[in-house]
């Protein structure tokens, strides 16, 4: 029986989504790995610990959450690596592609028939000189095609729109669904798309997101990145900033910088289509970097201080911020599959 699957291959997490009756089932794992040196008892070690791994000949790569455990067990001796950097595949790192292709194969398997579709997402055009996604897109498509899938690729911000259905109220009072701004604040990149009635109008991305914030705060405070990430996930609350905590204070500052950067760049792109959009726009935010409490208020606070060429109706979080992108990809996969039948 044909399948339609959404796949979000992110810098931090790898996710796939599939419809199951009235529900959407999402499967997720951390998109990271460590390489283990070959030894006589390596397979026994892996089995004893029940670690997830990928084997290529006599090389073993522990992946997912287990890779973090191994990295913590052997600090300085094993390097935690990610298939993606700044949201894209590095074409010079074949081991990374091997790991990613196994994640794809184990999560989705081969296509059951020639009408099965996978929809995945890539970053929009970069506005800050970070690597573009043309190789990434082609290589990802190749991985799916190798397993027999029909492929549809959309931009990440567009997936947020398809999942969250922002609505534009036209001057005459009519409503245009799937119209507004979708922003995915991922680990490696921020992706921002303006859509109208489900169709993308403009898109942009920047490598100034979660990883950038962690790195900048670590540089400014001297704290290790692991501590920064922990505070970001547990202590950061934009409605209640602890100004005595240097890390929290720095996080607040760099988050503000990121939001300002994204909207300023977006405003520049928007200028090309300004005349088509006079009504206020709804903004939907998603992604792991948007998870701290009060993030939407923070966005509102920053953009109120900018002179933007568009009016914002409101800023809201996706209903499931970590799953919005994969959910949007699944939505598109189902639509594409219907057209194939």
């Amino acid at each position: 029986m044909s399948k339609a699957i959404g796949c979000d291959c992110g810098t931090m997490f790898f996710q796939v989504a599939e419809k199951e009756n009235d529900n959407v089932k999402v499967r997720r794992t951390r998109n990271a790995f460590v390489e283990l040196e070959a030894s006589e008892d390596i397979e026994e070690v892996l089995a004893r610990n029940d670690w997830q791994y990928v084997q290529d000949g006599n090389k073993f790569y522990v992946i997912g959450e287990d890779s973090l455990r191994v990295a913590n067990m052997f600090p300085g001796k094993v390097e935690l690596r990610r298939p993606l950097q700044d949201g894209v595949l590095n074409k010079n790192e074949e081991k990374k592609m091997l790991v990613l292709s196994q994640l794809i194969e184990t999560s989705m398997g081969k296509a059951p028939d020639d009408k099965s579709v996978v929809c995945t997402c890539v970053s929009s055009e970069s506005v800050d000189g970070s690597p573009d996604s043309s190789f990434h897109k082609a290589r990802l498509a190749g991985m799916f095609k190798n397993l027999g899938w029909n492929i549809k690729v959309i931009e990440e911000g567009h997936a947020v729109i398809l999942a969250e259905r922002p609505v534009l109220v036209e001057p005459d009072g009519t409503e245009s669904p799937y119209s507004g701004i979708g922003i995915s604040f991922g680990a490696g990149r921020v992706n921002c798309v303006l859509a109208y009635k489900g169709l993308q109008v403009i898109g942009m991305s920047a490598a100034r997101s979660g990883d950038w914030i962690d790195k900048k705060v670590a540089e400014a405070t001297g704290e290790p990145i692991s501590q920064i990430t922990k505070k970001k996930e547990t202590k950061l609350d934009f409605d209640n900033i602890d100004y005595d905590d240097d890390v929290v204070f720095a996080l607040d500052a760099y988050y503000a910088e990121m939001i300002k950067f994204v909207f300023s760049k977006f405003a520049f792109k928007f200028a090309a289509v300004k005349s088509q959009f006079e009504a206020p726009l709804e903004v939907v935010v998603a992604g792991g970097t948007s998870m701290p409490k009060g993030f939407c208020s923070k966005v509102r606070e920053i953009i109120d201080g900018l002179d933007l060429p568009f009016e914002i109706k409101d800023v809201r979080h996706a209903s499931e911020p970590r799953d919005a992108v994969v959910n949007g990809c699944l939505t598109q996969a189902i639509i594409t599959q219907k057209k194939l039948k």
Partner: protein
Amino acid sequence: MYLIANATSKEIVISDLKLPLGPRKAIDLDRVRTREQIKQSRDLKACFKGGHIKLKRDDNPDHKTQVVSAEVKDEQIDKIRAAISEEIKSQLGSTQSSPPGDMMAMMEQIKAMIQQGGGVAGPVAGSSVSENDDLDDETLAEIHAKRMGKMTKGTMGKVHYEEKSVKDSIDDRTSELDGLLE
């Protein structure tokens, strides 16, 4: 050959060479401008500097001045025809003053091909394949699929996933979008 490619998804116009270049298109500048003009072009330099245009191949990196003719003159064609005619005569070992009819037809064909090749001043597409050149998505995916098939032969994985199932109005959304996108 001085092959350049537009690395962006928008048309670029190299103003001082009066040359438009479509998104992801490549062109051999030696076929349409002299090397002097190319080297003196400030707009081209700015495009290189900004990363909007990339130099794919330069067969004359010392840029010795060459006169590259964009046209093949009739005298050159006649010379080539005469040389071919002599060659055929010597091979046929014949006392005929001119080659037989089918040979003439072949030489006319060759002449037409030379004229075609000499006069083109348009994009040279696909002469060096890289991820930035203008191959369609389907072909690119095929190339990468083959590479991945080779790379992952014999690979196996044991992976667990964190799973969750959430009630979702995806059917409503897909129906609504179907209607919008028709």
